[in-house]
């Protein structure tokens, strides 16, 4: 009886691939940007080859893992300024205890560190829940706490790890070489696993639900408090992965690394990767190329003959541009619906 002109529930006339592109366009775009930058870089460097690829992937891996850590927490509606501190803490802890140990022992230590980091960061999430103090305040505290603890664990740069452990993250027993495949495989397995969990399972989707609309999530029977703790635990585990990767690359630990800077880079990476800082939106698959791009800007700019100090200016401009493009896309979307 009612003459309905357009049905808001039908899939409409849009072909499936167009909708897929609308939803995943950002992810595709960031990967294409990474590809374009690598292509451009290869024209700048006469001897571009597997060594350069390996160096980008290996050295970029810590930032990729750290960005994934931040992404999980931000998607669930939080933000963790402490991830950089966690990276430094796990880096020095690994270096201190792995020094002189055989491969199997280092592997066991690595697993222990990941579990402990998850547990400690879960505690941070728990404190946020109980105290009702905003995430940004509590995690500012945890950032300094981890950084200080790192200095206590390893006052002077040093320590070590096993050669095979270095190979897992770098494809080389000395931490430097031209074999990018172990790092690529490790990132692919871990990140795809995380993306699958977030996007396909009930517990993973709960993170998006809480980040998107906490009240609605709670009313749907989701325990928002528990979800926050889970997101911080996983964030902690991924920050530990970043710390372990750092140990493998450098072959030692350094508590003087400034964790706060690393945190800010993780935030920059997730913004570039299309994760909404307001929560509920984003994909960890897009965060991988975003982290690599941020890392990669320095070598590109230096190959172009730009003063490395100016690279930061470019990064800053890039982040603002990205935010402007996001705003523009959102504005256009709202105009057309």
């Amino acid at each position: 009886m009612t003459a309905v002109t357009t049905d808001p529930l039908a899939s409409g006339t849009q072909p499936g691939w167009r909708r897929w592109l609308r939803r995943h366009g950002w992810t595709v775009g960031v990967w294409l940007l990474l590809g374009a930058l690598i292509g451009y870089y290869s024209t700048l460097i006469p001897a571009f080859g597997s060594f350069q690829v390996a160096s980008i992937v290996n050295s970029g891996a810590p930032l990729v893992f750290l960005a994934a850590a931040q992404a999980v927490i931000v998607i669930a509606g939080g933000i963790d300024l402490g991830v950089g501190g966690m990276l430094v803490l796990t880096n020095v802890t690994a270096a201190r205890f792995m020094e002189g140990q055989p491969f199997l022992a280092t592997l066991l230590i690595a697993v222990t560190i990941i579990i402990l980091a998850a547990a400690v960061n879960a505690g941070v999430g728990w404190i946020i829940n109980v105290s009702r103090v905003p995430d940004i305040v509590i995690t500012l505290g945890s950032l300094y706490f981890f950084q200080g603890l790192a200095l206590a664990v390893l006052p002077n740069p040093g320590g070590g790890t096993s050669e095979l452990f270095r190979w897992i993250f770098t494809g080389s027993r000395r931490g430097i070489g031209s074999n990018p495949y172990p790092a690529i495989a490790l990132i692919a397995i871990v990140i795809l696993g995380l993306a699958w969990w977030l996007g396909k399972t009930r517990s993973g989707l709960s993170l998006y639900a809480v980040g998107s609309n906490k009240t609605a999530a709670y009313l749907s029977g989701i325990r928002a408090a528990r979800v926050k703790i889970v997101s911080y635990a996983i964030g902690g585990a991924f920050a530990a992965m970043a710390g372990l990767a750092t140990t493998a690359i450098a072959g030692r630990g350094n508590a003087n690394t400034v964790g706060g800077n690393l945190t800010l880079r993780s935030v920059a990476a997730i913004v570039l990767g299309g994760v909404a800082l307001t929560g509920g939106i984003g994909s960890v698959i897009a965060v991988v190329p975003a982290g690599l791009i941020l890392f990669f800007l320095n070598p590109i700019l230096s190959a172009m003959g730009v003063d490395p100090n100016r690279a930061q200016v470019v990064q800053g401009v890039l982040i603002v541009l990205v935010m402007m493009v996001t705003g523009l896309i959102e504005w256009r979307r709202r105009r057309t619906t």
Partner: protein
Amino acid sequence: MSAPNGSLLSVQGIAKRYGPVVALRSADLTVQPGEIHALLGANGAGKSTLVKILSGVFPADAGSVAVNGRTALLRKPGDSMAAGIATVFQDPALIPDLTFSQNLRISGLARDDVMPWLERMDLAHIDFDLLVGDVPLAFLRLLDLARALAHRPQLLMLDEITAALTTDQAEHVFDVMREWKEQGRSVLFISHRLGEVLAMCDHATILRNGSHVADFALAGVDESQLVTAMLGEELVEELAESAEDAAVETGTLTKAFDTPVVLEARDLRLRDKVNGISLELHKGEILGLAALEGQGQDQLFQVLSGDHRPSSGELLVNGKRLNARSPYDAIRNGVVFVPADRQQALLPQRSVRENLTTPLYNRVRKWFTLAGDEADRVDRAVARLDIDVRAGSQAQRLSGGNQQKVTVGRWLASGFDILLCFDPTRGIDIQTKAQIYDLLRELAAAGSAVILYTSELREIPLVCDRVLVIYNGRIVHEQDAATATEEILLTSAHGLEEAGA
């Protein structure tokens, strides 16, 4: 505790307070298996609070709840679901950034669980991969209902589900409720539309000021008896008098307005939503707009209030062309907007006073403090609207009705020529409604002009002078409001009749 024999739900002596405000003093409620039970009460009576307690949103301060004779501890929504209670809230509890199918997943449901219910509501063709945020509110309510039904609850609680639904959508909801009843399950139904309540429900429990006042079987009861019970005797008489006054007033006002035109729209268009609307609004007139959900009225108000530029057409205020870039421009020209969604108008964490003075910020000359004159205006607005300011430290603590009064009151304090009201009484109790309508009539008598869109058609003859019906972005019908019956308006609102009486 002694639950009455065989009752499905037995609530005794539930109390709840928020700081100094007592939301529930002592609420009792008994729901039998296989009945549709109405929960009635004016706004602020405590219905929503009781529903939230039964849904496990927050715990009660005192009292007990028993389901099937067993005491139930409802500390979180999961407890309530486990006890066999599912709720469809006024704001659908679906996650906007997830698809419908992902939303089902987080509730532990599969498509097949909701499909039978979607079929019954004519929604079987839904694309499960739609983002929930892209679905209009009316459909969201139905999707939320389907999800609640899929949990196969013993008791289904529907909080104002029919508000914002079109007539045929509401019929689908009623069908589902009847079927639920036939299966020996129960529904707790909350609605301000007493006609629906009488047509659908078997029993009613009435709350007033947070206490249980009456229980009755609804067979043979009429609307006036329900209203009496909800409001108390004295208030009803008062309202009846003011309604009589209103009838007289509207009677005398129903003439062609010879006052100047203060707002004129010429062939306004906005994409495919507003398809050439022209109208004239006179000084001192209340112009009613009637339409089904989604016929372009939302977009028309966006254009009129300066929130959105029209694709074409022009808007004249006091004979001068208004080319608003933002609501700021419209407000400066005396055109102000009261939205249906209070959240769009209020600063929820700020005080009532601060909310009332927000529109004044534009003209605060003496910084730091509001001038005495402005403080007076605020006091007058509070007094005029009878706003309950006990919970005044935060506007979000007010009941829905009081919040809506604040959204109107903001403009009273700052002054205006043309008031645009978009369904200002949605989900508001009779008493507050009467106050708001009284106010509109008074404002018009004092020389303001009002455009009022309302989803409650029967109120148009009570409040408005003239009514326009919009269908598919066009005006399809115009007549004196005094003679505009619900039937006429509904028929033309469905686009079934191009030219009416």
